[in-house]
């Protein structure tokens, strides 16, 4: 974090870390369990898996990496990155597989 912390503040953070840890374990169990369920729509399967993964990623990035209280400069760097990564995937997919755009053939 960008600011100095007193030991009391850190102790509060420790509780948060433990909660995040618990949530991550739960998320793992859920995602593995969900993989054994057969959904009719494969797109839904993909979106569900990515959604759970994104929640877990948000928890790690937000609390373990302190992003939730990080500074503007870091947000700027990451927003630019996410944007360009999205562009890479989206535009490449669109160029190479225009028919199956969004829909993954199974």
């Amino acid at each position, binding site marked *: 974090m960008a600011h100095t912390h007193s030991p009391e503040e850190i102790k509060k953070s420790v509780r948060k870390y433990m909660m995040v*840890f618990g949530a991550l374990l739960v998320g793992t169990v859920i995602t593995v369990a969900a993989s054994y369920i057969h959904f009719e729509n494969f797109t839904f*399967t993909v979106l569900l898996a990515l959604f759970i993964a994104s929640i877990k990623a948000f928890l790690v990035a937000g609390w373990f990496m302190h992003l939730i209280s990080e500074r503007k400069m870091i947000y700027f760097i990451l927003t630019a990155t996410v944007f360009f990564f999205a562009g890479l995937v989206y535009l490449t997919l669109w160029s190479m597989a225009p028919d199956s755009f969004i829909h993954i053939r199974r």
Partner: protein
Amino acid sequence: MEIPYTVHEREDTGLYNAKVGIWLFLASEVMLFGALFSAYILLRVGASPGAWPTGLLNVPIGTVNTIVLITSSITVVMAWASLKMNQFGKFKMYQTITVLCALMFCGIKSYEYYDKFTHYEIIKHDGTVVDGHLVSQNTNEVVLHVSHKATGAATHGKEEHNAAGQPKDSAKNESASHAAGGHHDEVRVPRSEIRKMENYGPWHNTYLAIYFTLTGLHALHVIGGAAVIAYLLGPGSKMWKTEPERFTNRIEVSGLFWHFVDLVWIFLFPVLYLL
């Protein structure tokens, strides 16, 4: 003049130099792994229907590895918090667990790789396929242990699978001469009958290619990150006595890298193992 803001933050950005540096580096790593993920998407979308194998990887083992990395993530942030609370002993304990988790992850991964390299697919001259793990081989024959738990092995798109990756008809996989409804585990194949024999390395199909590349690059990052953490736990920890704040910053920065490695796995695991 000394370089400023190596330890304390600069007022307007609120950051110290190394933290800016590591986040910039992580941004580039997002693009690196992102490009590999986009390659995965494109290769899969572009594959002929049914040609993309599923169920080739062991989900329970992958889950264990996921839990190992998540554990190491909490220990690495607890190590930093311990330093902030001036508890050097706790720091050492947490970082030791982190390094052990890293070693465990690599060990499990090595086992998984080994499992793939000893898993062979034999295509005989008559077109039948024998698929299983290598038991022994000599100049005359090859002996494979054929598993009835589906390992998928849809190498040329002829297999049908349900969502969990179990082949609908696993008997298609076995050598016809041993069908007879029994569970003969070992299949002997004379070399003269073999048209092609190939193990499940990255050359076997594009799914395995992207699997090995993604997990291999990830494993290199695990090793690199673990090496830095181990160094800071060992000889590097001397700095705690002379410059505790700078040392704590180093732990934070190396922790950020470690969390990124965990983040990549959080996406790798469902994409490669579950989908």
